[in-house]
């Protein structure tokens, strides 16, 4: 209930800020500072921790832990699919939780995927997006990293729909679980990191664009509206650079 009032207030807030998001990053100086802070912290603490974790914990155990966490994440998946009116998906998420929590031994084995119930990726930020709330400016949060105003505002709802505080009573256990989750997630990214280093002219810009596009894609479950104007550039110049298509340095 509180969540829905909160959401309504947020919608008003968003509508009050007209399409100021022409540039998606009006607070870039702050964001860059935050990015540097996070990056520094990652370099001295999280990354070494994740590397140690990846070296010490065998892959099957990491996969099992990932599944265990994902089983919890299916709870907000179900709730948000319901909120977005995707009843079939919501039912499938509930089925996943039921199957994985029992046959999958508290979620450690993702049996539901074997049965063809695929895991979704939903959160309240996406639900708001589906309801028509614009993402607002890009924000880099301390510790948590890339977000937008909308997605940041959605975080408390994600916490309450996460369901962990209902299932796990001990705060200490909950916090250790979250800590381990962060390290596990970071370990999964170790591979992709070199690719990012090599592909990005400017890592900050690259990550920002990646995040914003990814979120847009998630809001529309893989079929975002095609941005307009993609092709005008080409049509006018179609003939000109043709030779370079086959060039060899």
């Amino acid at each position, binding site marked *: 209930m509180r969540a829905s009032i909160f959401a309504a207030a947020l919608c008003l807030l968003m509508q009050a800020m007209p399409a100021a998001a022409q540039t998606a990053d009006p607070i870039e100086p702050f964001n860059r500072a935050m990015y*540097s802070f996070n990056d520094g912290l990652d370099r001295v603490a999280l990354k070494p921790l994740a590397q140690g974790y990846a070296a010490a914990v065998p892959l099957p155990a990491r996969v099992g832990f990932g599944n265990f966490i994902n089983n919890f994440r299916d709870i907000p998946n179900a709730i948000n699919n319901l909120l977005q009116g995707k009843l079939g998906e919501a039912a499938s998420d509930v089925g996943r939780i039921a199957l994985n929590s029992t046959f999958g031994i508290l979620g450690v084995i993702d049996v539901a995927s074997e049965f063809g119930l695929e895991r979704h990726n939903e959160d309240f930020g996406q639900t708001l997006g589906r309801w028509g709330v614009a993402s607002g400016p890009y924000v880099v949060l301390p510790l948590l990293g890339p977000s937008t105003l909308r997605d940041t505002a959605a975080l408390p709802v994600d916490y309450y729909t996460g369901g962990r505080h209902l299932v796990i009573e001990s705060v200490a256990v909950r916090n250790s679980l979250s800590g381990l989750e962060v390290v596990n997630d970071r370990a999964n990214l170790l591979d992709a990191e070199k690719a990012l280093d*090599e*592909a*990005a002219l400017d890592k900050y810009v*690259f990550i920002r*664009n990646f995040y914003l596009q990814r979120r847009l894609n998630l809001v529309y479950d893989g079929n975002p509206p095609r941005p307009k104007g993609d092709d005008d550039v080409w049509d006018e110049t179609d003939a*000109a*650079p043709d*030779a370079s298509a086959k060039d060899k*340095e």
Partner: protein
Amino acid sequence: MNRRFFNRFFASALIVAGIGGAQAALAATAPDELIRTVATDVQTIVKQDKAIQSGDMRKTLELIDAKVLPNFDFARMTSLAVGRDWRSATPAQKTDLTAEFRTLLVRSYANAIVRFKDHQITVKPLKLKPEDTEVTVRSEVRKAGSPPDSVDYTLYKKGEEWKVYDVAVAGVSLITNYRDAFGEEIKAGGIDGLIKSLRTKNAQNAAGGEGAAKK
């Protein structure tokens, strides 16, 4: 009997006719089949090639050059990533931009293919209509124990051949992702500034620079 012999003879003749011929045969195929063939071929070769697996960049680039690049249209890709400013670029600048952007992307791809070696790649069938000139072929890359990542290829029909001009990983399009970064470089230093940045970046990558990306 006779006919079978003939077929076989014909097939060997085709093989003898050479690698160039194979390229042309490939290009005429449907877009989804094209992606599937290339993905499977590359994966098979990487699985067998110990040198590529241990990071032999020269060999990896040779493989990409032979199997993958002929199916891409980098000029179109680059023009879309550069966006509006492409119009004001001279032909020489366009050629340079295309070459440098291609080097950058090929390098990223080269790093990825070894990691994808044991992943399961599923290319989804495409309903191609005869009048289609632009299609998106969707595929999934699944690593054991993790949810699949989507990799979507956008192709257009260039003459009789299908050419890839955008790739979207997890819904994130390469073209769109580079557009902002390119725009900022151009705003700061013009087209030549962008070419210079790309060149510097490629040189850093080639040198195997750790922490090569500027912050």
